[in-house]
């Protein structure tokens, strides 16, 4: 029997309270674009953060090495980097390694070193049937929990997470993100109510190519976390957003559930609504709630979840945190505030506030004319009025 208290804090009280701005934009035809727009947009929501955390996720930024896992790792000290590199060499074939270029600015003080490693996991020595993704996940947890001073920002293919202590626009400047190109970008500005800022605690949170930016406080944190621990997740990042990232990984990757099902698990309809549904829908939600009830996310939240090909904007079922969605041509936007979207795309084909608990899913268009934005499940009768245009 594993003793979780050895690796996990048994009191579960590492949750850090924070309020935030979030922003996401995606080209549904997969066209690459620079970080300029999202930096402008998230900077416009400056006042929603307090300079203690900002970050970005970029998809499609390493097209030349798109077959390799890109581990972006932050190191507190030189020693921690050396130790980690010994570990990496032991368990990975490293195809390329470099320090991530930075452009020091006044605002960013005492930054850690951040490196990226393009790697393939060594599977040869493992005497078990296990996927590459699972191996990488396992290694990431080992680095985060056992190697002092090393934290993995992201570990997916052809994507990367850049984050740190500062306002998001300062972090963008520091990493020179206007020079990167991607087809999905998400961003986060943080307002933690604890004083100590920590680079690893900034958003996005990521595992493999899944990223989460989150505005909210999860009151079900203890229940969510203890459920995830049963599935071997180790919570080490001192924030509740981490459980969202791991829950997405468990449900979407390991259990193979489509992202709309995952969102239904996070914010299912209330039982009284389920009782009124047709038999097929009813058994669907009953099965979800009964099996994954411990992963219901309670308390106020708005999240943008992304992985290759999909960007999802979602809120808690009574919508206690803001979220606005917008569409212009092939671009889909999600933001805490409409003003941020308007700033980068003054003309919008459609802009609206999604119904609480109903995800907005933007998908890469692989066939012309395909519907690229899904507004979640059908609304209950009488619920319609909740979705309204913003202006």
């Amino acid at each position, binding site marked *: *029997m*594993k*003793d*979780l208290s050895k690796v996990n804090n*048994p*009191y*579960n*009280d590492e*949750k850090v*309270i*924070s*309020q935030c701005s979030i922003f996401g934009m995606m080209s549904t035809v997969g066209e690459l674009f620079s970080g300029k727009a999202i930096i402008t947009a998230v900077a416009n929501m400056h006042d929603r953060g307090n300079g203690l955390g900002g970050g970005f996720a970029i998809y499609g930024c390493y097209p030349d090495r798109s077959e390799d896992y890109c581990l972006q790792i932050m190191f507190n000290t030189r020693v921690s980097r050396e130790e980690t590199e010994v570990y990496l060499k032991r368990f990975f074939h490293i195809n390329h390694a470099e320090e991530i270029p930075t452009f020091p600015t006044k605002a960013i003080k005492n930054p850690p070193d951040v490196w990226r490693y393009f790697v393939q996991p060594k599977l040869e020595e493992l005497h078990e049937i296990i996927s590459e993704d699972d191996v990488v996940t396992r290694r990431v947890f080992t680095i985060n929990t056992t190697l002092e001073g090393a934290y993995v920002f992201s570990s997916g293919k052809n994507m990367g997470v850049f984050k740190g202590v500062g306002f998001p626009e300062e972090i963008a400047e520091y990493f020179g993100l206007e020079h990167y190109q991607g087809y999905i970008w998400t961003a986060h500005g943080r307002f933690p*109510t604890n004083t100590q800022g920590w680079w690893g605690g900034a958003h996005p949170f990521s595992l493999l190519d899944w990223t989460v930016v989150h505005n909210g*406080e999860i*009151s*079900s*944190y*203890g*229940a*969510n976390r*203890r*459920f995830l*621990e*049963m*599935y*071997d997740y180790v919570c080490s990042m001192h924030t509740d957003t981490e459980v969202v990232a791991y829950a997405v990984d468990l449900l979407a990757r*390991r*259990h*193979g*559930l*489509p992202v709309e*099902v995952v969102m239904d698990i996070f914010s299912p309809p*209330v*039982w*009284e609504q389920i009782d009124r549904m047709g038999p097929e829908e009813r*058994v*669907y939600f009953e*099965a*979800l*709630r*009964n*099996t*994954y*009830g*411990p992963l*219901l996310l*309670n*308390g*106020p939240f708005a999240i943008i979840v992304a992985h290759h090909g999909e960007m999802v904007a979602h809120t808690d*079922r*009574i919508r*206690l945190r803001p979220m606005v969605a917008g569409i212009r041509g092939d671009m889909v936007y999600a933001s805490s505030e409409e003003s941020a979207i308007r700033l980068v795309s003054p003309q919008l084909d459609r802009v609206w506030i999604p119904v609480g608990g109903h995800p907005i899913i933007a998908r890469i268009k692989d066939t012309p004319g395909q519907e690229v934005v899904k507004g979640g499940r059908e609304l209950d009768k009488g619920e319609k009025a909740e979705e309204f245009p913003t202006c």
Partner: protein
Amino acid sequence: MLTSLLPEFTVDRSEDRCIQCRVCERQCSFDVFGYDGENNVMVHREENCVACQRCSVLCPTNALVIRENQYTYRPNANWTREYIQDLKKQAETGGVLLTGMGCDKPHKIYWDHILINASQVTNPSIDPLREPMELRTHLGRKPDQLEMVDGKLVLPDYPNVEISTPIMFGAMSYGAISYNSFRCLARAAFEYGTMFNTGEGGWPMELRKYGKSTIVQCASGRFGLDLEYFNDAAVVEIKIGQGAKPGIGGHLPGEKVSEHISQTRMIPEGSDAISPAPHHDIYSIEDLHMLIHAIKEAVDYQKPVSVKISAVHNAPAIASGMVRAGADIIVLDGLRGGTGAAPKILRDNVGIPIELALAAVDTRLRNEGIRNWASLVVSGGIRNSADIFKAIALGADAVYIGTPALMALGCTVCQKCYTGKCAWGITTQDPYLTKRVNPEIGTQNLKNLLRAWSLEIKELLGCGGINSIESLRGNRLQLRGIGLESWELEALGIRGAGQ
């Protein structure tokens, strides 16, 4: 020989108020009151008084006050009055002392050392009067994961039962309690959408209509069991132990086995109904495994099977074995759990508090990654809705209440259930007494209790910013300890207040 016992209680009757109506004489089933017709006064045999308060509540002029006997032995911290009295009774009788209800010793009540969190600023609290607030709970095994095949969810095939609130009525058999009390429990559970438990005394045919709200017990005496008994119910529970008397069986004396009870228990009228201490076909965990599966075969795998044990020192390891043996629900009954009759020495000294057992079992099942294989129900020592809230935050799915349900029917916890003379008509089969429980009022009171506690749980959830009970389950972050030692906080898995 002259008894050297002091009466435990005194009867103060105000002669000014008393109108000699003799209500107290008729109401008292312990033979305390008499009437002296010559002098037109009431007389007392105080040594018989058990302080059930039936007389003082029913006295039309409020002439009666029953109080603890002020006369006492010389104060002694070691030889308390209770120990002196118990010893003397045994010297006079040479027997094992019996008692009823749960342990009344001042062992630490952990519920009273746990405080609950509330949302402020960063997380809005939720008003249950305006927003949905969900208490609905499903009991039974949950799958480890769901699968999608061709865009369709493959539905899990573990049977689950639904309850509208995480509060159920614990096992109290017909025989231990009166027919009226039993039927109040059945009906209230049915009408409120929760469950009651038949205990090990069979299940009268005319109450089978409440089947979807019924948990039937299969205990060591195997009373009243047949295929229909299992199949008419919603859940089948194998009873291994009971918190008030771990390791002890039961005994319903023959004089209580009336015609109806004899039919229900499937034993001859007037014969003793003895439940042995162990099940004589379960001497090990693999035997339990076989019984669980025999029952599952009998119900065609359509109903969850529950296993109930008393909270003992190594409950976590036993619980793990039970889950692996196929139990869909496990029930832990704590030290303070009630009983109709138990040896006093056992009731007061054997077992552990339910709070500690619950925390340990939940943690153990999670460490083994099998917590979702079974629902966890706890009982024994629940007194109010806050206790239930705390139990769920520690990791329980639902609770059983026994004593509180009887209190809703009139019980005053006088602990004399084993005498069969319950003056409130609950733990007795005497028709003169049993009619004191009115089935309509009793049912309504039980439903009121469920409703009141459910509303309070919703308030507590809302103040913590949670709108669904599953987000509370095992969410120990919502709790803080006060006045606890560090080992106790660690055992409960909670931080201290202010930490």
